[in-house]
Structure formats: C-alpha cells, structure tokens
C-alpha cells in the first residue's frame, strides 16, 4: 500500500502541474458566472421593490377620483346616446368599453384599499398582477352595461363563461393570497386564446409571480399548502382511491406511495416552523442549471486527463521510469486511475463552490433544504449537501467517459486518439442517441446505450419539487419505472457492468503489454 500511495503522490505531483486544469477551471468559472448573469436577466431577478404606503394612498385617492369622474361622464353620454337610439355607433360602443374599464378600475382601487398590506408586499408587481383581473372585470361591466341589442354572440358566450368562473375568482381574490392570485391568473389564461399577445403577457407574469412567490419566503409558506400541487395531489389521491378497480385509472401501489409522499411534503412545507423550504422550487432549479453547465466542462477536462494518463507517458518515454520502479503494474494503473478520480472529485467540489457563490452573489439565492420521505416521515437535508450530491450526480457521464478515455489510453491508443474518440462519442454521439430515442421511442435496444442511464438524478434526487416525495427505502425497488425511463436498478447494474468491462480492459492490457 505504501508503494501505491507513493505512486499516487507522484501522479498528483505531475497532474497538478498541468495547465489544462487551470484553464478549464477558469473556463468553468467564466461560464457559470456568465450563465448566472443570463439567468438573472431572463428571469427578471430584479430586486424586490416595495411600494410605500404613501404611494398606495395617493394611488387610491387619485384613481378613485379620476375613474369616478370618467364613470359618471361616460354613463351620462351613454344614456344620451341610448335615448337618441345611437347604441350601435362605433363611438358609442367605444364608450361602453370606457365605462366598463372605469368601473373595473374602481373595483381594483377597492381591492387595493381592502388589501393594503398585501399590495404593499407585492410592490411594483402588484399593479401588474391585478391587471388581468381588472380586464376581466372590464369585460363583465362592459357587457352588463350594454343593451341586449348591441351584444354579440361571442360577447355573450365569453360573459357566460366569465359569470360561471367569476365567483371562484372573486372568492379567491377576497382571500387575498399570492398563491390564489397566481392560480386565478392561470385560470384566466385559459380564457384567453393561445398565441395572442395577451396570453403571452399572462404567461410571463405568471412566471414572474411564481418566482416572487418563491422568493417571498416564510410569509408564503402556509399559503403554499393551498397551492394547486397540494390540492391536485389530494384530489388525485381521492380519485385514485375511488377509482381503484374501475375502468378510469388503476393506480399502481408505487404511484399511490408517490402521491402520499407528495402530500406529506406539501403539508410539511405548510407547517415548517419559520422555515421556507418553499424556496427550493426556484433556488435549487437554478443551481441545477448552473451545475449542468459545469458538468459539461468537467466532462471535457476528465477526458483530457484520463485519455493522456498512460499514452502520454508512453509517447514521451517517461513510462520507463515507472516500469523500472519496483512496483507491479496494477499499482501503476490504480495510481493513475485514482488521480483521474481525484481530479473529477476536486472539480465536482469546485463547481459546487462556484455555483453556490454565483447564486449567492449574482442571483441572490441560496440552496434550500431538500425534502424527502422515508418510512412515512418527511426528512430534510441541507441545501449545501443537496448541491454537492447534485454536482456529483450530474457528473455520472463524466465519470463514465473518463473510464472510457482511460481504457483507450491504456490499450495503446495515442493521447490524441483516446481524447478525440472519447470526446467525439460523448459530445457527438449523445445528441444523435437522443434524436434516435425520440424517433424510436419503443426500441428496446436503446436501453442498452449508456447515455440513457447517465441521468440518475431523476431517480435519486428528483429536481421537480412536486415529485420530491421519493421514498429512499423504496428507491432500489426493481419495478419502479419513472417517466418511461429505465428503473434505477437497471441503470446502476448496466452502468456498473460497462464500467467493469472498461476497468478490466485497462488493467489487463497494461499489465500484459510489452513496452
């Protein structure tokens, strides 16, 4: 063991002097920082801008006065037009709209007045949030103000739909929660045709508010328990129980357990004392994105390091110094392999640190605790630990191709060939395989391609918080299928078998080879 350790130290002495390590570390840093800035821009991560009470008061007073006057003047004009029989004129129709709009604006002012605290918390977002509601109300008031003779069939249909939905909206609006507002907007979106600017605007807003919801922390924790996910899970669970044995849908026991776990996690989030695990939804997703970019760089680096471990020594002749040492060849291979693994682990930790710092300094976010269910109880582990695991799991492919490049280097290929072939397959063939998978979704042989099994994260630490209720005790169960992918056991066994073949080839060839 002493000799193996001495060899390992020697290999470390050599590898840390390689400029490629520092170049790749800098590229990784630049990439993560760049992506963080990009995410900040794309996701409107602007600082939460509160609105002062004075501004709210001024807004209420100013708008009430303005829209009351508009309402009165349009109402008078409309009465005059109606008595003169000019209801169908374009100018009159436009005034109906102005009337409805003014009335809706007054509704909005009323809402603000009765929900000042929430409106203040929502800040600048608040007025945007209320706009769809206001527009909805404007349609309602416009329609109701119009005489039956000028109402179109389309307007009537839309009004009937509104009328059926509005009480729910109103009730939710009255409860005044951020979650309800978002959900109301989601439902409102369904009333607006797809592809229109209005629909797109609502989509953007929903995304932004969801982000704000996640950032709002503890104050939203309890509200979150009333979210769609939780309600859906409960409803689904109820439906599942009643529909067992029916023709509608028969739930698998594993699906039922997932549902139970999800419900437990939602309830845990709602009742966590002062905690804000709700934030994991966005913070951890952003971390995942950053770490994916880091894994790309790490994948390149470990192929370069592993692909040159033995071949470069052979081509430079320095391998003679190793062979002349009183150590068996398997120890030489082991030391070199351990160095590759050390580089991989060091870069996983480095990527973790850079991503965490980037999130904190650029995105203003911290990793949130990860929740999971074991033996029917919700457990949480630290966000930093989740981050480290995620970094590691994102590099399963890097590890696999590191072994592949190492094997090519060991069996006698040159550094250029070992690195080139490995990179070619890793970054060239992988997209091809994904394309084939989408073209031939039912091809069984696809399951034996290693690329299919690199994403172990969705088995072990699912990213989506709504499916975070995984039962670790059941994780290694043989029958669990996830999203049509392979079960974890199959992925692990298959990747393990391929890795073993590569390792055996690396050792066997180097130990037998004449140099």
């Amino acid at each position, binding site marked *: 063991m002493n000799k193996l350790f001495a060899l390992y130290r020697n290999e470390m*002495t050599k590898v840390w002097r390689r400029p490629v390590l520092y170049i790749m570390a800098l590229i990784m840093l630049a990439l993560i920082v760049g992506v963080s800035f990009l995410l900040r821009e794309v996701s409107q991560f602007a600082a939460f801008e509160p609105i002062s009470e004075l501004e709210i008061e001024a807004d209420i007073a100013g708008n009430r006065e303005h829209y009351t006057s508009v309402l009165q003047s349009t109402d008078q004009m409309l009465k005059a037009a109606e008595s003169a029989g000019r209801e169908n004129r374009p100018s009159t129709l436009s005034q109906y709209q102005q009337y409805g709009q003014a009335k809706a604006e007054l509704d909005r002012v009323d809402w603000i007045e009765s929900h000042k605290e929430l409106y203040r918390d929502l800040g600048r977002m608040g007025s945007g949030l209320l706009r769809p509601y206001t527009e909805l109300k404007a349609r309602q008031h416009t329609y109701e103000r119009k005489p039956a003779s000028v109402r179109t069939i389309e307007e009537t249909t839309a009004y009937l739909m509104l009328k059926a939905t509005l009480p729910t909206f109103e009730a939710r609006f009255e409860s005044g929660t951020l979650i309800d507002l978002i959900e109301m907007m989601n439902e409102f979106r369904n009333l607006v045709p797809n592809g229109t600017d209005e629909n797109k605007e609502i989509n953007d807003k929903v995304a932004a508010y969801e982000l704000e919801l996640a950032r709002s922390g503890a104050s939203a924790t309890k509200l979150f328990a009333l979210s769609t996910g939780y309600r859906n899970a409960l409803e689904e669970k109820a439906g599942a129980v009643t529909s067992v044995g029916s023709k509608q849908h028969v739930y698998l026991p594993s699906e039922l357990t997932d549902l139970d776990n999800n419900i437990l996690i939602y309830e845990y989030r709602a009742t966590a004392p002062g905690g804000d695990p709700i934030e994991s939804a966005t913070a951890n997703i952003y971390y995942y994105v950053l770490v994916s970019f880091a894994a790309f760089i790490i994948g390149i680096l470990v192929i370069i390091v592993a692909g040159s471990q033995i071949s470069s020594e052979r081509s430079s002749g320095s391998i003679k110094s190793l062979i002349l040492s009183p150590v068996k060849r398997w120890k030489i291979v082991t030391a070199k392999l351990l160095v590759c693994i050390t580089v991989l682990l060091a870069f996983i930790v480095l990527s973790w640190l850079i991503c965490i710092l980037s999130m904190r300094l650029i995105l203003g976010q911290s990793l949130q605790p990860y929740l999971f269910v074991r033996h029917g109880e919700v457990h949480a582990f630290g966000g930093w630990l989740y981050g480290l695991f995620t970094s590691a799991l994102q590099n399963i492919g890097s590890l696999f191709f590191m072994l592949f490049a190492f094997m090519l280097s060991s069996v006698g290929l040159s550094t250029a060939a070992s690195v080139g072939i490995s990179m070619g397959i890793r970054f060239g063939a992988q997209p091809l395989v994904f394309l084939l998978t989408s073209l031939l979704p039912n091809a069984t042989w696809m399951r034996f391609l290693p690329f299919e099994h690199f994403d172990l994260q969705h088995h072990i630490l699912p990213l989506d918080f709504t499916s975070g209720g995984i039962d670790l005790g059941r994780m290694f169960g043989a029958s669990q299928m996830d999203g049509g992918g392979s079960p974890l056991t199959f992925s692990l066994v298959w990747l393990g078998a391929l890795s073993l073949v590569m390792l055996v080839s690396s050792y066997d060839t180097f130990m037998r080879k*004449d140099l």
Partner: protein
Amino acid sequence: MERIVLTLEKVRKSFGKRLVVDNVDLEVKAGEILGFLGPNGAGKTTTIKIATGFLSLDGGKVTICGHDLIRDYEKAMQHVGGIVENPEMYKELTGRTNLIMYARVQGNVPKERIDEVLKLVGLEKRADEKVKRYSLGMKQRISLAQALLHRPKLLILDEPTNGLDPAGIRELRDILKSLAHNDGIGIMVSSHQLAEMQLMCDRVAIISNGRVLGEFKIESLSDGSRAKNHIRYIVEAEDQENAKQVIEKSGHEMEMSAPGVFDVTLPKPESSVLLKELVLADVRVTGMTTLQTSLEQAFLEITGGGSSIE
C-alpha cells in the same frame, strides 16, 4: 564464490514469427562490468528490456539477486537501476523533483542520498532546472543519478555514453568502474563503442541474431594486462636493417612480418619517441599505422563483420 546478481537462463522472445532473443544464457556478477555487444538488431535492447521487466518472456527465466523476475517482481526490481534506450524523465519537472518522485516509490531512500547522487553525476548546480532544459548529456547524467538513487546491486545501462562528450564519457567510465570495483555493484552495459567498452568493461558478451555467440574477459583478448595499455603499430621503413636495430634497441616487442614491415607493440605515449629515434638514425619511415584493437578484432570475427539486420 562470486555472487551473481543477474542470471538469464534460456531466455527467449519473439515478435510475431521473428525470434529476436534465442535461448540466451547470461550472468552478471557482483563487482564486474559486463559489456553487452552486438550489431544493430542483434537483440541487445530486447534482452535488456526483458531483464528490466519491460517485455514479457516467451521462455526461460530471469533471476535478479536470487529473486525470480516474474514471480517475485517487486523484490527483484528493488535491486535494479537502469537506463533503457534513451534517458527519459518527466520533462516538465526539475531534475531534483524527478529524483524525489523516484525515491518515494523506492522507499527508504534518505534525503541526503539525492544530493549525493547529484554530486556524483556532477548535476548538483543544475538540479533545480526543468529537465526539458537539459542537454542529452545532462539527461544521461540525471538518469544515471536516478538509477543509482536506491543503491541497486545491479545496474543495467543501455548505450549510456550516447550524447556524452569525451570528458563525460571518461567521467562515466570512472564512475562505473568505481561503483563496480569499490561498491561491488554488478553492471551490464550495452554499447556500440567498442574501444570504450574495452576500456570500461571487465568482461564482454557478444550477441548476434538473438544468440550469445561469445563471452570472454577483456584481459584474455591479448596477452594479459598489456593489452589494455599497449598498442600494436605497423612500421614501414626503407632501411630495413637499420630500422630493426633501432627498434630492438628500444626494447619493445617486435616482429618483422614482411621485408621492411615491423609489427611493434608499445605503450601509446612511446610511439612518438620511437619515431624520433628512427628519424635520428636516418631511417626513412614510409608509414606508421595502428592495428585494430583486440576487441574490435574479436567482435568482427565473432559476428562476421556485418549487421545482423535482415
């Protein structure tokens, strides 16, 4: 009984169908320098690579200091220091770092030993430079330092004089002689420089076409120790009798091989003295040339004078 540090018994090695080493038997004793000679492609480097674990054996047995190289690899290699083909080190590291790394793997090499070997090969002032800045001669020296670091009992050197200047070659010769004769290390050296081998080695083995064709002590090449210091000259003179008298008077061993042609053996520094005496005695010397060295003669006789590469 002389201790044997390296034994090759019926060693065979083929590359494909070509038999490169054919039943080679060889021994290196402690305290001797064995010259391993042979034309290009004769199997010298292959034999050396087999003895140092670079190549596998197709047949036979290699024993180093009593340890079988195959079965007891680490113990056997612990006694070996070597330079195989070209001296290759880690170019991006300094000479000293290379030695430190080698010492780590060898184990129980004290720190001061590194300075000791650097001084021995005359690299103590350049030890902290990167190897990539070394000349070929310096690389040979640092490789030799590495080979000696762990005080091996067997030193195997493949063409160690390559790249060395005349002073360096002489220095290396002195170092190796001292290591063998004073420290009792068994040394196996392969080289093409026969004159140098004659001066350096105690014994030579000549290999051709993968077979060891002859083994003999340098002393036995001519009449004992005289061969090392005396050179044979062919002196051609017009005045035969006068020349014969002058040469006889000088007391050197002489034989007249043809009329006016004398085969004279004398120490090299005295050749100019003899020439001066002949000229002063009014002998018209028409030619004075050296005969081939004894090792070269033996080598050419054994190997047939050509390259074995076919």
